[in-house]
């Protein structure tokens, strides 16, 4: 066991856990932020996607010891009231079916749009590798494009 000081959604947390415990479980069970989901535990599905700095990472395979002093952002930290442009696009296009993977999909999209504000279909294919078991992919793609308009509109406007 060891003590770690983490910054999650701009809030400080001190946790005393096994150094091998993946960040996902620290976020869920110790910071008690359950919006980040467990899907596979081997970085295949992306349900656990959070941001480490500006990077989207799969938190189920990152040991808490490897986090360092980078800030962590989870779905709960994306906006106060769900009004981040990506969240708004998700609601406008009614993307979720069961909804379980969507926090990860949204976090992956936010990171993509930071890198590529106007992603092409190829960019979306290459970067959006999260699994949606309900297969809401058609709407996810549309929502990424809508969010892109909203994000760039805001930047320009």
């Amino acid at each position: 066991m060891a003590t770690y000081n983490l910054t999650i959604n701009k809030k400080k947390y001190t946790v005393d856990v096994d150094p091998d415990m993946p960040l996902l479980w620290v976020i869920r069970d110790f910071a008690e932020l359950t919006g980040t989901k467990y899907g596979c535990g081997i970085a295949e599905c992306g349900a656990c996607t959070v941001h480490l700095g500006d990077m989207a990472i799969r938190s189920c395979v990152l040991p808490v010891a490897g986090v360092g002093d980078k800030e962590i952002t989870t779905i709960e930290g994306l906006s106060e009231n769900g009004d981040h442009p990506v969240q708004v696009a998700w609601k406008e296009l009614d993307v979720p079916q069961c909804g379980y993977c969507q926090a990860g999909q949204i976090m992956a999209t936010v990171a993509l749009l930071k890198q590529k504000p106007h992603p092409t279909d190829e960019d979306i294919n290459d970067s959006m590798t999260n699994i949606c078991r309900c297969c809401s992919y058609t709407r996810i793609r549309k929502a990424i494009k809508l969010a892109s308009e909203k994000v760039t509109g805001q930047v320009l406007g």
Partner: protein
Amino acid sequence: MENRSVNGLKRRDFIKISALTGGGIMLGFSWIGCSSGKGKPVTLNAYIKIDADGKITIMAPNPEDGQGVKTSLPMIVAEELDVDWSQVHIEQAGLDTKKYHRQVAGGSGSVKASWDPFRKAGATARQMMINAAAALWAVSPDKCYTANGMVLLKDSEKKVAYGALTTRAAKMPVPKNITLQNSGTFRLIGKRIPSVDNQAIVTGSYKYGIDTKRKGMLYAAMVRPPAFGQTLKSFNDIEAQKSPGVEKIIRIGDKIAVFGRSIWEVMQGAKKIQAEWQSDVLLESTSDYLNNFKALLIKGPDDDPKRQDGDIKKAFSKPGIRTFEAWYEAPFIAHNCMEPMNFFADVRSDGVELYGPTQNPESICHKTAKLLGIPEDKITVMMTRMGGGFGRRLMFDFVEEAVLASKAVGAPVNLIWTREDDMGGGYYRPMCSYQYKAAVDANNNLIAWHNNSVGVTGNASRPNNFPAGAVPNLQVDAQDYKSPVTTAPWRGPIHNFIAFAEQTFMDEIAHGIKKDPVAFRLELLEQAKKKPVGKVDYDPDRYAAVIQKTAEMAGWGKPKDKGIYQGIGAYYCFDTYITQIAEVLKQDNGKIKIKKIYCAVDCGILINHSGAENEVEGGIIDGIGNALYAEITLTKGKPDQANFNHYRMIKMIEVPEIEVQFIKSNEHPTGLGEPPLPPAGPAVANAVFAATGVRLRTQPFIKSGLFD
């Protein structure tokens, strides 16, 4: 078309009114006398709460697994109640067999079964508001009308909100005669209404079952036999006991429960248990199943056929006929709900609380009562939105584990499966094999059809499937293969594969007799309409209309760009008609890329356009993904795949363009959870044949080498 009165509620029918604390009324609707398919009377219930402050709450009694019923069913009530959707709050109801009917997510049946009772619930409440306003104004009720949660007086400025009428309405008799809204002027039904949980989902605040945490609760992980058919001989938990965060380890039957303070820690603890397993049954591998299935199909069934029209023996021995034969193999596949199985149970001396993701709350209540030997009224069941269901959450096993674990440890427990537990065990879609034979006469008429089936399931066939009804000599046989592998319904049970077998076999016959596959199907449907043979489940006209619509959308038969080919899958199940035409590109390297799916749907009256379209698009992609990639193989009873690194799931890059159209209809609405999936596989396979001349007869298609 409707605007009809609903009269004649029998004397035993009743509508309960109870005053809520702080004013307001709750209407509980119970119709006895609506008949089920078997002619037995069933009780149908719904709940509406109207607070004195005007807040309107509509209960959503059905389990939500992403199919959209938490939104679409309350829409039906809101339409009839004549309230503005933005005024309405939706509340998930727990299991209550006295108040509600059919609280199950299965068989694509929620919308179909709820349409009439939910409409009547809304319309009765609306009439009560009218009657209360009429009494208030001392006028006849027919001088009053409603709009957006208000009662208004004709030719006057007078109006009153529902909330202000509740106290008065609660004291008045419940109206016997009610008027339903005219389906031609629906304001809400048929519109695009976003899911009521979207805000909670996109902010991460929605609490799924896996997120359940209570005071004094322990997490539990379970060590289970690694192969189907094994039992626990002995185990050593010395290392596991020392594992951080592990508080207790208890053997429960052939499983070992590990309890602790956090999910990861109990999962780690479970990994450290050294168990010895034994088996007194034969542990079979995939090749054993395939060989045994084939032998059984050749031998033929001992039981009577599932369906028999005419005489296939005679028909197949007629001179001058041409015969077709093909064999198909369906692998075991996993449900792979994104939210792994989990359940919360608190077994106390005074009762049991069950809380979590289930498609089947009534059944888990019943089974828990039996398991613990307690009455059902000592058990409460509350459903969370499920992170996927697909049939897996119709099962009791994971609830049973949570119940037994809570009882054994004497504390509330949230029992959580790892992905490996979930994919590498539990329940699968049954493995099945099929032999199809058909005969056409000298005039190219389909005169005989034989479906010979076997699988790890009671009935691997769907005997009344088209072309049954259109063929004079038809026989369907099915054999059950006993296996320790536990199988469960999987989105469109049996349909999910048999659609592929039937629709590609039909394509094979059409090509064999040089008939256009669309025209061939339409001719058979015409046959079923004019000269039906035996029982005909489907409406040939509706079936044909959906095929024609899809063909029109896809430009079927018209010249296409170089390398573009099309194939059709036209299927009917759970009272819904869906046709899909797949458009594929044969690339220069010979590999196939799926470019587009055209799809027309007849599900009767469309309730929520947005939810329905989402369900259809998802079902198509799910159908393609599973046909292309999905397979669980077994080596001596042990699954060879246990996580997504060895079990391919369809991802964004493989998803084709999809175009969906719904047939405008006034027919009774039907479900969409399952019907969109089955036609996708055959549509793709038939397009592959058009492009390459290769007939796909087993899944997953990826094994053909034709896909990347």
